[in-house]
Structures are given as C-alpha cells and as structure tokens.
C-alpha cells in the first residue's frame, strides 16, 4: 500500500457503527409500518400518482450507482494509473449505492421475491423494465468481478481493460434503459422524449462525480492534510473540469426541458408551470449553478471543503430534479373531472421519508464496510 492510497481507516468504523444502528432502526420502522399498514403507508394513489417517493429514491440511488461506475471506468480507461487511487473505492461506492436503491425497491414492490425470479425468465421483450432488470444483473455481476479483480496486487490497466469496458457498457445500458422506462410513455408528454436516455446518462455522471468527491474526501475525514497528493491533484485538476462541464450539460437538459415544457400546450405539460412556481425548482437550479461556479474556478476547486460543498449541492440538486421528473409526469390527472383536481397533490408520507433515510444508512454501511475491510484501498 502506498501513502497515496492509504485512507483514514479510523473514520470508517464510527461511520459503520452509526450507519449500522441507523439502518437497523429505520429498516425496523419501515418494516413495522409496512407490515401493519401495507402500502397504505405510502401516499401513492389510484388517482394517478402510482410511482411516488420510493421510486424517486430507488431511481436516484440506482442512477447514482451507475454514474459512479461510469466515472470510475471512464477515469481508469482514459487516465490509467492516475485514477488508480480512486478506482477500487469508486467501484465499491457504486455497489453501496446500488444496495441502497435495491433495498428501497424491495420495499416498494408488491412481490419483491417473485420479481427476482420471474422477471429474468419472463422473456417480456417488449417491456423496458425487463431489459433494465437484465442490465442491472449484468452490471452487478461485472461490478463485483471488477472489484475483486482490481484488488489483485498484480492487476494492471491492461489486465482490467476488458472488464472495465464491459462494466462501463452495462452502467450506460442500465442508465439509458431507466430513461426508456419513462421516455417511452408517449401519452405522457412530460416524460416522453427520445433524449431522456441521454439526459439520464449525463445526470448519472454528474451524480457519480459528486458522490466520488464526497465519499473519497469523507474517507479522509474532510481533512486536506490527510488526502494524498495524487487524489488532491486529480480532484483539483482534470476531474474538476469534467465535473463542471458535466454540470453544464445537465443544466442544458434541465433548462431545455423546462423551457420546452412551458411553451408546450400539450396536456400534461402544465406540470411545468407548477414546478417552476415551486421554490424546490429554484433551489435545484441555484444548487447546480453554485456547484458549477465552484468547479469552474481553479482557485476555488483546489479547496477540499469547497469541493465537498459543491458535491453536496449537486446531490441536493439532482435529488430534487429526480423528484420533479418522476412526480411531475404524474401530477396532471389523465382525466380531470368533478372529483379529479387539475393537479394532484402529493407529499411523501413519513414511511416514504424513512425509506430515504434507510437507503442512505444502508449505502453508508456498505461503503464504510469496504473501508474497514480494506476493499476500497487500491493496490
């Protein structure tokens, strides 16, 4: 192990303990609520809001996971050994994010276990969800293999190149198919668009970068003097630039969708008027813009705490964006009438919020476990 790859192992154990206890408590509460109330513990409704906050959380974690994997694979393939100190950690972080997302999905589905064995063998070729599940399985297997292979002392870029490419392909595929799930709903103009898979890929990469920044620096207790020079230079250098440009691209998609939506007169697009009149939308834009300014400034982005702030701002902005996208596609009822309001009102229930906290704890448990077991250390 070189100094460049050594992390502050001391911090991982307390994180593991706190996150572990937090996970047990929140998962227990969620299980209790679900077993006593069933899915009535969620605020979804047959009026038209079928996919609520749990799907927002699930999608956010899944796309964060694929985004982190994309960042890791792109970074390793294009910069080689320069990215080595971040490679194993990022891959493990992707797995941590995936576990959080899948856990939430399991709580949301009516029959999660049935889903696991029925979907892969259903051969439902016309369903985007079928392909997405296959892609997630491929992604998970590749990710696990790559983590295992990357830990081998003798692993070189050349020896890992094939598997890294395959993992990258699966990460892109999962993200794009997640976009197709929404983008293919042609009668929901809020969602339907051919560019959604591309928008999801960009958004994933932005999220992936934010999480890599945050959790890498967290591993060193956010203390600049503990962060190896090699990581500091990657973060302040090219990766910072890529982060800034990725935010620009993401903003193009967000603002473009908003403007088009506000111009549009098609049924369903009125959702945009509600979205832009909500402070959440402006918080999202402000968060992303601030992070953009930070990452574009060479002087600012050298500071580790500023990097952490930018990462947090991006995480918040992306989460709000995901919420707006998934809920926004459903808040205008398909048939408005005497008992269907022009806009459905929706606010997550306490159980739905608990799912988010549970997913955060679980992802932190898995991530910290990697640190404690030394899996996140590159050789």
């Amino acid at each position, binding site marked *: 192990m070189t100094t460049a790859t050594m992390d502050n192992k001391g911090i991982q154990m307390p994180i593991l303990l706190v996150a572990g206890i937090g996970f047990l408590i929140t998962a227990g509460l969620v299980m209790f609520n679900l077993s006593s109330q*069933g*899915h*009535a513990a*969620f*605020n*979804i*409704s*047959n009026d*038209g809001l*079928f*996919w609520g906050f749990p799907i927002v959380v699930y999608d956010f974690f899944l796309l964060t996971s694929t985004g982190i994997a994309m960042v890791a694979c792109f970074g390793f393939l294009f910069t080689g050994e320069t990215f080595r100190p971040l490679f194993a950690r990022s891959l493990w972080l992707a797995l941590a994010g995936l576990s959080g997302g899948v856990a939430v999905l399991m709580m949301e*589905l*009516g*029959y*999660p276990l*049935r*889903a696991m064995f*029925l*979907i892969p063998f*259903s*051969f*439902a070729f*016309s*369903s*985007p*969800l*079928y392909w997405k*599940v296959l892609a997630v399985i491929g992604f998970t297997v590749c990710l696990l293999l790559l983590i295992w292979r990357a830990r081998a002392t003798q692993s070189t870029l050349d020896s890992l190149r094939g598997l890294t490419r395959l993992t990258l392909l699966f990460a892109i595929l999962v993200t794009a198919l997640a976009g197709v*799930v929404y983008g293919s*709903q*042609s*009668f*929901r103009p809020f969602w339907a668009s051919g560019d959604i898979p591309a928008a999801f890929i960009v958004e994933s990469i932005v999220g992936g970068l934010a999480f890599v920044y945050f959790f890498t620096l967290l591993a060193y207790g956010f203390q600049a003097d503990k962060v190896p020079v090699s990581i500091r230079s990657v973060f302040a250098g090219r990766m910072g630039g890529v982060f800034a440009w990725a935010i620009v691209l993401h903003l193009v998609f967000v603002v473009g969708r908003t403007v088009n939506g506000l111009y549009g007169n098609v*049924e369903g697009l*009125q959702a945009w*008027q509600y979205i832009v009149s909500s402070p959440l939308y402006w918080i999202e834009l402000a968060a992303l813009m601030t992070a953009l300014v930070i990452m574009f400034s060479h002087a600012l982005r050298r500071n580790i705490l500023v990097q952490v702030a930018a990462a947090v701002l991006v995480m918040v902005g992306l989460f709000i964006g995901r919420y707006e996208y998934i809920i926004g596609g*459903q808040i*205008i*009822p*398909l*048939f*408005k*009438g*005497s*008992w*269907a*309001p*022009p*806009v459905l009102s929706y606010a997550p229930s306490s159980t739905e919020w608990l799912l988010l906290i549970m997913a955060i704890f679980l992802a932190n448990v898995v991530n910290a476990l990697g640190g404690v077991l030394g899996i996140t250390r590159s050789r």
Partner: protein
Amino acid sequence: MAKWGMVIDLDTCTGCQACTTACAMENSRLPGENWQDVLFYHEGKYPNVQLKWLPRPCMHCENPSCVSVCPTRATYKDPEGGFVLIDWNRCIGCKYCQVACPYGVRFYTDEKAVVQPDIRTVFPSEEGRQWDPPWKGPQDDPRRGIGIQPHGVVSKCTFCYHKVSQAPAGVPDLDEDIPELKEYVPACVRVCAPKARFFGDLDHPESRVNKLIADHRGTRLKDETGNKPQVYYLSGGASAAVPSLRAVHQDKA
C-alpha cells in the same frame, strides 16, 4: 374466434352509475376500485357551461400498452376473445401497467382506503386477499384476475370474462334482451336501463356493435395513443364523445 367489443352511446347514457354499481357487485370490488366508472366533468364557463359524463371501463385495447410494459407477462391479451387480463400469480405489483395505461383504469388497492371506514378491516380476509365481503360472486380465477385479488397486485375490468367466455360460439352479439344469452352479458351492459351499452363480436360482420360503429361513426377514446380500444363511443348529439381533456380549470393550469 371472437373479438369482443363494447359500444357506449353517450347520447343515451344518463350517467346513473348503475353500470358502476353492477360491476362492483358482480366482481366484488372495493369502494373506489371502480373497474367501471362514470366520470363527470364540466366544459366551458358560466353561463355557457355544460355538465357531461363519460362511462369508462377498461378498453381491452387491441394494442394494449399495459401488456407491452409488463415485465413479468402477468398482463396479457387473451387471443380467444381479445380480453386483456392479469395473472395475479405473476403480478409483482410494480405498477408499470398503471403508469402506462392512457385510460387510468387499473387499480392497486393496497393504498389508503378512499372511503372510511376501511372496508378491508371490516371484512378482513384470512386467505391473504384484499378483503372478504359477506357476499361475493362464486367466480375465482386468479390467473385471469377474476375474484378478489391478493395483496400487492394490480386489478382491472375483465369484460366479465367469467360470463362472456361461456357464451355459445359464433354469436354476433351478447344482448340482455335475448333470453338465452342474457347470462353471458357483462354486468354493466345487462344493467344499463336506458340501453346505452352494446356488447358483441367486433370481428363478426353481422354484429350489431359493428353496425352501430359504422352507422353512427363510433369513435375511440384517445385514439392518438395507438392503443386501439375495443370500446367505442357513439355521439352525434349533445354529448361529446371524447372529453376535452383540458376542459377543467384550464386557466388555473
């Protein structure tokens, strides 16, 4: 092989909701789980305002988007009759079909009860079903989404498969006025007092439903979706066949 379809004459429909009630009784539906519903809405502004209504069952689409998106093939199109049905033994409750149905006719009844007291707690089921009403129809076919569903699955109108599928082969129409056929007529059609509903074989050249569609320019709801409903609406008079979707509170939107 029949391709069953329904014709609803909006000029005759009085919006009495007898169809909704008959469906709920026939199929033991929960309050609010209206497989068949009549949607009321108003168009225009005072003083030029009109109250309108639209009966809306599942359209049993020829090209159903709910079938296309289902990742487990739980929702399927029965080639014999053209019914769109759900196999509750395969449904995982992902609700993708609900999201993908342009007509909003699918129900996930694990959500909060729309009417209090929650009748599921008044008549709880000991077999893991949604509820156990004191009276329920004898039909129980989970592989076709018939009967009372278990928790965690989606339900929808079956076009009264349990009745229609028993009809003698080759009949062009199932009409409640023909004594020997009335038992095979869907509940919503049979009970319709002003006779605004007709049910028959869309592939049968002699069927009355085909004649009505041809003679009265039957239209399909949201035909632009390409789902090709097997439910047609007739309207030539005062009623709109397809409601103007932004009719309500457009200015507030």
